[in-house]
């Protein structure tokens, strides 16, 4: 039986304004019928181009300049228009990253689903019936209602499910997925991935999964390929590739991840020095040589041949030395670590709530949140969409006003709600680093202006003192003086975020709110930024409120964690205690939603969607999806959060009966009508 997808020596070039950029060089791999292949790469590696090339939907500027692509044994180049259409109608499907944009906003879901059957030649009525049943198979509740809806009326998770339904409705031989879950919440992502796996098992479809997320790829695919600068540098079975990588880049990538219970006390994260080469640079020798610890003159002169380690191929002259590769970057912190002091609290919130008015409707984004943050302490804020974590950040920093009855205290003294009303000292004390540096840095200003202006306004510095402080700050975030004259568009994502951090630290803050500061960055860059943040914390005794959806990162950085769901504080306590358990059922689901490399964990599946904050469920807001729901009490009465102890959990289930993770004792969820035994 011929392979589902076979790529041989593929080279793709983009032509832009008179310049040629070779985006993919000599890429070859095979996906057997029914197999699953994962492609891993950071931004700029060319992975999306590979997906588009595989289906011959490259944009106008792109061309396949060498090599071939075969689907089911057929060379794509040899197909005429009608044959290509038939291939697309019956054999191959593709699902992209942004589900909202992949659906036609002017047609109903039903109509768009019916199109899949239309090209198969089925009559209209039959198409509609089968469409409805397909929607049921992707676990969409009320398929008829969804069929009559328009795309904008569905949530992101539902939209992606619809696209998967459309993709699998034709029972294709090959399914191509390009970052299918980026942008979805963790629990929704877990659902979608499970769905794909189970449908794949049922239908025997081959899978080509492209992602920057190594964990997902490892979990879903039998074989993995690693793409760097347009070259497939490693290719092998996922288990061996992740356990024992043979290419320095893969090893570097794996080491960048905060993994398996790693904490900042264990030392710095490793990073990969330097930057990937721009696509229009002609590279002689190994593409990774300039960033590689093992590189020598030979590497820079001659491109490495593929080295085979029993089905596990790596493009490296020194592949056998990779397992013993030492750390590329320093292990110790630059300043001695400062132990966090939880008491007395530096920052305190009491019953903080925020209600927005959207049209005539009241949306309660945050409900009675009470937290405390000590000096040199990191508080991790965890939650999915609608949890209120961004609202909390905005309230703390003074961009919005809390509802009456809530209070924020800094050093024991009450803090003005709005930043404008706060004293300069208070404004200096609380700063924020935003998620997206393209939005957070004024693209019309130079780096000097961006940081210098803050020094002028908050510290009142001018002239030489200002220059000195500017230089200091630059050094603190590892930027060089020549960056001062540049504008954001000339800097990479990591550099821009460093500028944003320098700006936040310009006023010597006591507390810095970090709102997903690394979510938009590549894994290797993320590690560098996280290291920087910890360095700065040790040097300046700064405290952080660190918001993230990535539990691995939160576990690494945070001393304490607050888990938010629908604007309510569900759990609050020391990091390790929360991870080990006993913990809240929602936390349990979140933890199980994170696929870990290697270790298979029993996935807790949450039913339904996150409820809308406009109409929160009565009683415990989590009861509609809780797999450990006790019964009527959960629907009637909202559990109280007892903040007297170290570790607070908002749940009716008595603590001894709450779930723990593998490290502790594992307890199965109670059946619906059981009474908990103590």
């Amino acid at each position, binding site marked *: 039986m011929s392979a589902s997808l076979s790529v041989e020596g593929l080279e793709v070039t983009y032509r832009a304004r008179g310049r040629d950029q070779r985006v993919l060089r000599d890429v070859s791999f095979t996906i057997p019928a029914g197999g699953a292949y994962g492609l891993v790469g950071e931004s700029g590696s060319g992975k999306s181009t590979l997906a588009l090339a595989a289906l011959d939907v490259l944009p106008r500027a792109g061309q396949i300049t060498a090599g071939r692509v075969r689907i089911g044994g057929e060379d794509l180049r040899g197909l005429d228009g009608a044959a290509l259409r038939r291939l697309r109608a019956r054999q191959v499907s593709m699902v992209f990253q942004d589900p909202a944009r992949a659906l036609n906003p002017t047609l109903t879901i039903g109509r768009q689903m019916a199109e899949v059957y239309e090209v198969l030649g089925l009559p209209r009525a039959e198409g509609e019936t089968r469409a409805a049943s397909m929607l049921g198979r992707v676990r969409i509740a009320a398929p008829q209602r969804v069929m009559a809806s328009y795309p904008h009326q569905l949530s992101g998770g539902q939209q992606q499910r619809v696209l998967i339904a459309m993709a699998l409705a034709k029972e294709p031989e090959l399914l191509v997925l390009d970052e299918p879950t980026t942008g979805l919440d963790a629990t929704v992502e877990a659902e979608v991935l499970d769905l794909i796996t189970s449908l794949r098992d049922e239908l025997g479809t081959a899978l080509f999964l492209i992602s920057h997320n190594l964990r997902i790829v490892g979990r879903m695919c039998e074989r993995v390929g690693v793409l760097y600068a347009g070259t497939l540098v490693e290719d092998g079975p996922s288990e061996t590739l992740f356990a024992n990588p043979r290419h320095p880049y893969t090893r570097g990538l794996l080491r960048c991840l905060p993994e398996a219970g790693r904490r900042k006390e264990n030392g710095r994260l490793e990073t990969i020095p*330097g930057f990937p080469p721009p696509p229009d640079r002609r590279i002689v020798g190994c593409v990774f040589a300039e960033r590689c610890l093992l590189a020598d003159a030979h590497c820079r002169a001659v491109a490495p041949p593929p080295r085979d380690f029993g089905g596990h191929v790596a493009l490296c002259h020194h592949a056998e030395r990779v397992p013993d590769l030492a750390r590329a970057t*320093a292990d110790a912190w630059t300043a001695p670590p400062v132990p966090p002091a939880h008491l007395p609290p530096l920052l305190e919130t009491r019953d903080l709530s925020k209600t927005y008015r959207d049209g005539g409707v009241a949306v309660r984004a945050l409900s009675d949140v009470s937290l405390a943050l000590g000096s040199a302490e990191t508080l991790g804020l965890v939650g999915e969409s609608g949890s209120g974590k961004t609202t909390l950040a905005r309230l703390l*920093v003074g961009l919005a006003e809390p509802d009456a009855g809530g209070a924020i205290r800094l050093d024991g003294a009450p803090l003005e709600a709005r930043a404008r009303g706060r004293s300069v000292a208070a404004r200096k004390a609380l700063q924020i680093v*935003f998620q997206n540096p393209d*939005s*957070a840095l004024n693209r019309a200003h130079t780096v000097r202006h961006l940081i210098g202006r803050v020094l002028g306004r908050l510290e009142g510095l001018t002239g030489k003192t200002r220059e000195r402080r500017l230089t200091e700050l630059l*050094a603190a975030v590892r930027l060089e003086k020549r960056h001062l004259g*540049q504008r954001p568009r*000339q800097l990479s994502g990591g550099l821009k975020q460093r500028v944003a951090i320098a700006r936040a630290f310009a*006023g010597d803050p006591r507390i810095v709110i970090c709102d997903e500061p690394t979510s938009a960055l590549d894994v290797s860059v993320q590690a560098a930024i996280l290291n920087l943040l910890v360095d700065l914390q040790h040097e300046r005794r700064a405290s952080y409120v660190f918001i993230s959806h990535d539990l691995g990162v939160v576990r690494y950085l945070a001393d304490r964690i607050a888990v938010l769901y629908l604007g309510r504080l569900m759990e609050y306590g020391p990091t390790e205690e929360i991870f080990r358990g006993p913990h809240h059922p929602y936390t349990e689901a979140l933890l199980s939603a994170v696929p870990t490399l290697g270790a298979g964990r029993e996935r807790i599946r949450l039913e339904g969607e996150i409820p809308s904050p406009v109409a929160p469920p009565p009683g415990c807001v989590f009861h509609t999806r809780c797999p450990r729901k006790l019964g009527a009490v959960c629907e009637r009465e909202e559990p109280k959060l007892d903040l007297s102890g170290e570790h607070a959990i908002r749940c009716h289930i008595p603590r001894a009966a709450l779930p723990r993770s593998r490290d502790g004792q594992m307890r199965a969820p109670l059946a619906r009508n059981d009474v908990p035994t103590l």
Partner: protein
Amino acid sequence: MSAEQSVSAVRPLAETKQEVLEDSQAPTRWEVLRRSGTFWAGGGIVGFWALAALLGPRLVPWDPYATDLLHELAPPSAAHWFGTDQLGRDIFSRVIVGSRDILTIAPLATLLGTFAGATLGLAGGYLGGLFDIILGRIIEVLVSLPLIIVALLVLVALGPSSVTVVIVIGLVFAPVIARTVRAAVLGERALDYVAAAELRGENALAIMFVEILPNVMGPVLVETTARLGYAIFTVASLSFLGFGIQPPSPDWGLTIAENYGVIAGGYWWAVAFDAAATASLVVGVNLLADGLYGALAA
């Protein structure tokens, strides 16, 4: 010298080799502009007429106002390249000098409109509130009437004069430009750098002019150039109708109105060259605007 400073001095740079990542793929806006055919074509035409307006009177072969009743309506010849009009005046000289008035009035009106409009748009977009609502209503009203008709109304009431024309066109342009600027400002306001500015205590004026304005300059520039084309269009039309530039100016619109009656008799040169001049100028300005738009969108 604090402990912090000494620590940062020894901080290892091995972790991230700092290099400027030159955005080598995307060309800068200047490069796009330089390569833009429409920009240079438009610029050339406008440049030519600007020169004609400035230096014309000195360089033309005949006095544009000198009548010669012996040679009325003479066709184009070696002596009179574009022929003569009903009063024997040399058309070529009149066409060259005729660029002066329109190239004074239209740009002035546009500048007035741009300054007023940009300020209104910035304020409306950033400050919002009642001001923005009222601004919106005014825009709605002024947009519902064609510019020419509003101009006619005002010019009838106040009497036609160049100053009035400048003010009317400028004031009617202002809300329309404000609308474009406002939309751009709303887009910027949603970005985090505005929040960051508020957090460090910048006042509204600083945010509008130091933070936001530089980022909306592009759309403002494109809009201004496009409006200039429309200003020329309107001033020429008003002159044609008798409500714009007044005689004895050799303005093109005025000339066409004066000589329109004779074309049935076959004296096409009395209006054709003025018509061509008008067309070339407005097209030139529009090409310029399009070139700028292309560079901006890059």
